[in-house]
């Protein structure tokens, strides 16, 4: 069985890679249909085999699989290897990644139908699937970093997919560089792990964490830090980049310049959750650093609440969903900080489905509207696009945590977990995520109402051609709507009561908030009714109600509100000024430093003064002493006489003394 499984795991990663290579290298030869078939079949194989692996590990309870594929290199007695660790954590991710990717491959047939870069697009998204699977299936930090950077690369390529658009190629460079800032931290974390553990293998590192519980490192003069804190903070900086946490969130809204299918796949469902997955994977390390956990709580809470506010003022349909993604990633991060890793993973899974669904629904609207993304020019689409509207409603309900939907369970557990957490930062985080519920409901239904209900504001020629999206588009929507609605009911019990993740996630007993929640758990139904005793549900309803008031009942209300609180509105519309700040301070500053070093350092000082300067001084020196060799005999004779006289003077002086 073991060998058998190895073939399956290899096929899971290689099938999308094969599809990507064929579509990318021979795109012209196989044509458009050839490209989508080869990649869709590749991802379908990957997805079905992942489900098989899921059954094998989770349902049949097979032991973890941990094998090396090959040795990348050996240096200084350390083997750097490529290999797979398949346990409940990775197999869950594999199913989510390959399945969502599969749906998005199908959807792309409709969305990219008229695009000249059709084959290239399929090649990229399959390549992404390969990279993401390598990331989640890795059994060591090296391969994790490989996948980590590789998904960043594909994200870069896809954001800049429409390479003629200036805003797209600005956004992709920005995304890559901001991610690199995170990777910079991540790499230092990996280096620290290698230094203290002498291996990059997960299991070996996790087995030895106790040894370094109290090890310290001196970073600044005389100030010693716990090694675990340094490692965890470094790794988490990587997660902040990839999972777009404040203040490295700035790239995600701009990434919406890419085609919508990748916004759904990469910038909502999978890649941006890599940071969440990584921290969950490293739970044995993070559990040893309370400092890091507090830091994570604060960062997550700030992202969850303040990015949600920004969703309220955006009019671009994709950007609203993007800010919502930021905010939801903040929720997951808060769960990590509260040591509720399983809850973070739970929300990751449900969010992957409902957020992919929301993005794809937004994409369906965008195609039907002829690439119009401004919600102020939509409205009343319910009549024309009932399937899209209903699936979008399911996604929205899941997002706001409507009782019974998948998002309800995952989000409720996070809020409960923070409530139970005893870390100093948990109070702040609790109120942040609690207020976030209201904000989420408000912006979600603002989007829903503005798009599908109210006055039909579109241009006339668009309005005449309104119709439901084609079947390749609606089919993935319907398929994704099912888990968005129902997944929570099935997963909540094994997650809370059963030992779903097994040994893949470690929580020290003093941080174990989930087990506290589990003691009050008496079945799924009572979990739902129980929720009505606590504020989140009412906050969600309140948000829904306010959205209804503002966008259905009294459509003029928002404008009046903006006039009253113009100052706050300005702050929100400027996204707290982060973009301007980065543009001036970082982008501008770096260029100023570069110009200074280039002009003053290299050209003036080194070349001007030293190199050509020494050449000049040689010339100056030669010009001066050239005068001595005048060629006139009497000059030389005169020099000889002076020399003789000097010699005599010295001689006499010596004799006398």
């Amino acid at each position, binding site marked *: 069985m073991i060998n058998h499984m190895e073939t399956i795991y290899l096929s899971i990663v290689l099938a999308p890679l094969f599809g990507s290579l064929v579509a990318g290298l021979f795109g012209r030869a196989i044509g458009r249909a050839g490209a989508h078939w080869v990649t869709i079949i590749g991802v379908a194989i990957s997805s079905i085999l992942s489900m098989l692996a899921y059954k094998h590990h989770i349902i049949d309870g097979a032991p973890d699989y941990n094998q090396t594929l*090959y*040795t*990348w*290199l*050996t*240096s*200084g*007695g*350390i083997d750097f290897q490529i290999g797979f660790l398949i346990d409940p954590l990775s197999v869950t991710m594999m199913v989510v990644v390959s399945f969502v990717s599969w749906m998005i491959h199908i959807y792309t047939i409709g969305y990219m139908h008229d695009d000249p870069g059709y084959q290239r697009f399929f090649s990229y998204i399959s390549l992404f699937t390969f990279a993401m699977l390598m990331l989640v299936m890795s059994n060591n930090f090296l391969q994790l*970093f*490989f996948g980590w*950077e*590789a998904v960043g*690369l594909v994200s*870069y*390529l896809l954001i*800049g997919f429409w*390479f*003629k658009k*200036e805003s797209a*190629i600005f956004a992709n*460079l920005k995304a*890559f*560089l901001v991610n*690199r*800032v995170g*990777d*910079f931290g991540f*790499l*230092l974390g*990996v*280096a*620290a792990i*290698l*230094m203290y553990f002498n291996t990059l293998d997960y299991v070996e590192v996790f087995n030895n964490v106790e040894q370094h519980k109290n090890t310290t*490192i001196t*970073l600044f003069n005389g100030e010693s830090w716990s090694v675990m804190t*340094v490692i965890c903070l470094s790794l988490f900086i990587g997660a902040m980049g990839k999972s777009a946490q404040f203040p490295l969130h700035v790239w995600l809204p701009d990434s919406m310049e890419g085609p919508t299918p990748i916004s759904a796949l990469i910038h909502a469902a999978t890649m941006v959750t890599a940071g969440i997955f990584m921290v969950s994977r490293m739970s044995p390390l993070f559990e040893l650093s309370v400092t890091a956990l507090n830091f994570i709580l604060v960062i997550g809470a700030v992202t969850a609440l303040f990015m949600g506010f920004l969703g309220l003022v955006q009019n671009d349909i994709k950007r609203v969903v993007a800010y919502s993604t930021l905010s939801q990633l903040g929720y997951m991060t808060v769960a990590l900080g509260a040591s509720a890793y399983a809850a973070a993973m739970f929300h990751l899974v449900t969010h992957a489905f409902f957020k992919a669904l929301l993005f794809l629904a937004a994409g369906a609207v965008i195609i039907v509207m002829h690439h119009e993304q401004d919600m102020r020019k939509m409205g009343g689409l319910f009549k024309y696009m009932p399937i899209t509207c209903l699936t979008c409603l399911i996604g929205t309900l899941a997002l706001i945590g409507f009782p019974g939907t998948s998002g309800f369970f995952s989000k409720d557990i996070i809020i409960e977990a923070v409530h139970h957490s005893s870390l100093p930062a948990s109070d702040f985080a609790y109120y942040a995520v609690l207020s976030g519920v209201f904000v989420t409901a408000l912006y979600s239904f603002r989007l829903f109402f503005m798009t599908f209900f109210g006055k039909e504001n579109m241009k006339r020629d668009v309005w005449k051609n309104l119709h439901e999206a084609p079947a390749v588009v609606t089919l993935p929507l319907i398929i994704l709507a099912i888990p968005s609605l129902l997944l929570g009911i099935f997963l909540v019990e094994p997650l809370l009561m059963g030992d779903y993740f097994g040994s893949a996630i470690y929580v020290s007993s003093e941080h174990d908030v989930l087990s506290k929640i589990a003691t009050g758990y008496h079945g799924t139904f009572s979990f739902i009714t129980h929720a009505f005793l606590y504020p989140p549900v009412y906050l969600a309803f309140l948000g829904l109600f306010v959205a209804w008031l503002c966008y259905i009942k009294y459509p003029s209300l928002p404008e009046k509100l903006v006039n009253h609180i113009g100052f706050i509105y300005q702050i929100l519309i400027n996204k707290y000024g982060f973009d301007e700040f980065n543009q001036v301070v970082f982008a501008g500053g*770096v*260029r100023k*430093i*570069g*110009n200074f*070093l*280039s002009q003053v*350092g*290299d050209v003036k000082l*080194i*070349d001007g003064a*030293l*190199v050509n300067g020494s*050449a000049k001084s040689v010339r100056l020196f030669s010009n001066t002493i050239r005068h001595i060799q005048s060629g006139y005999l009497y000059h030389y004779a005169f020099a000889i006489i002076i020399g003789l006289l000097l010699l005599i003077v010295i001689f006499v002086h010596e004799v006398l003394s």
Partner: protein
Amino acid sequence: MNLDNLPILSILIWLPILGGVWSLIIGDQEERVVKRFSFLISFVTFLLSVLLYYQFDNSFSGMQFIEELYWIESFSIKYHLGVDGIALPLIMLTTFTTILVVMAAWEVIDKNISYYMCAFLILTGLMNGVFVALDSILFYVFWESMLIPMFLIIGIWGGPNRVYATIKFFLYTFFGSVFMLVALLYLYSITDSFNIQVLQEASIGLTAQKLIFIAFFLAFAVKIPMWPVHTWLPDAHVEAPTGGSVVLAAIMLKMGGYGFLRFSLPIAPDASLFFADAMIALSLIAIVYIGFVALVQEDMKKLIAYSSISHMGFVTLGFFIPFGIFAATNSNAGAVMGMEGAMMQMISHGFISAAMFLCVGVMYDRLHSRMIKDYGGVVNSMPYFAAFMMLFAMANSGLPGTSGFVGEFLVILSSFKLSFWIAFTAALTLILGAAYTLWMYKRVVFGEAIREEVLELKDIDARETFILFLLASVVLLFGIWPAPLFDVMHVSIEQLIQHISQTKIL
């Protein structure tokens, strides 16, 4: 035929040199013959280096394929050749690059093609000579004579400002090398030998070691080049023809690195230890300072030249990190990784810089400009080219999965053992390297083509595709599976680390 007795190293030196002379005899009139003949010579030379690789014994730490004859007996100067795991990868890099350069010149060089091929073939022989010479005078002769063909290449086929650049290049590097000769003569005076291996074993006092180190440093630091003696490189690159830039970046810079490994470190290990902090500081300055400078360049070749200097910072950092580790921990653990990382960085940079310069060459051949502002939107007319260049740009930014990642990664891991802050500073390249490379890529390749000329550019032809494909293959191969390269150098590097970790002061 018994291959064991073949003087393979001599052939690696003299076959290209004689081939070069012969191509001159064939003359410019027979253009096609010259090209085919030069290609044949470069290809056979490469096959010989492959043969060398297969015959090479990975488990043996000493020199192999030794050839030894008296040259000037009264000073015991010998024609003494041999290779170890440090020289072998560099030889293979040299012969591989020569094939690329010959192919790259195929339709591009229209002036004095036989002289051009002659210069490059002779250069190849001389460079092989540098890597296999075990007699220091022989080494010096190869080292200095290498300047002549390069001087001619830049001087004859170079750009408008070629005279300034070529004189600067010559004087700069010659200035450094003279001090090396002084050091060699001094070493002869105390050991009565020019044999490099004898010099490595000689015990020398600390003061003498320091002076020797400084003399060698002047030669090698200029060549590699280290900050602040780097300013000849951007000028030389800008004026050099594409082939010249490729050889310069891919191989000649590595001479400096090779010199450190062969002379500075093993002959003066105590002085190396003494100067290690300063050398690490200079390396970090190269990585960061030059990264900033590269960012604001407007000339693509200058930008890549600066990026080379920054990448070479990792090489020197990897060379001197081990001394820091000896001093800090009294053990060798972690030192090997830095040194091997530096070696890997040299090899990988050979491929990537060659590829980057060839890419600029491809554009220059079409539009006769190296300035970033003259391009923009190249992808619209040259999609295949854009795809290749994307790969190389990513490799230049050190993306995992390409060879550019391996060396930097190992050096950063190794430097963390010495200090968090050194690793921190070195790792800034992750951001800076990506910034300058991808920003250039964005401005040159992406976007709407604004200039008419750019829209009319022809995509790469079969010859250009083949050259870039070869480079792309090795860049990916060594990114995904660098182990074969490390297997070749392990024993030699470990022995070197062992050697330099012991004091030579009696």
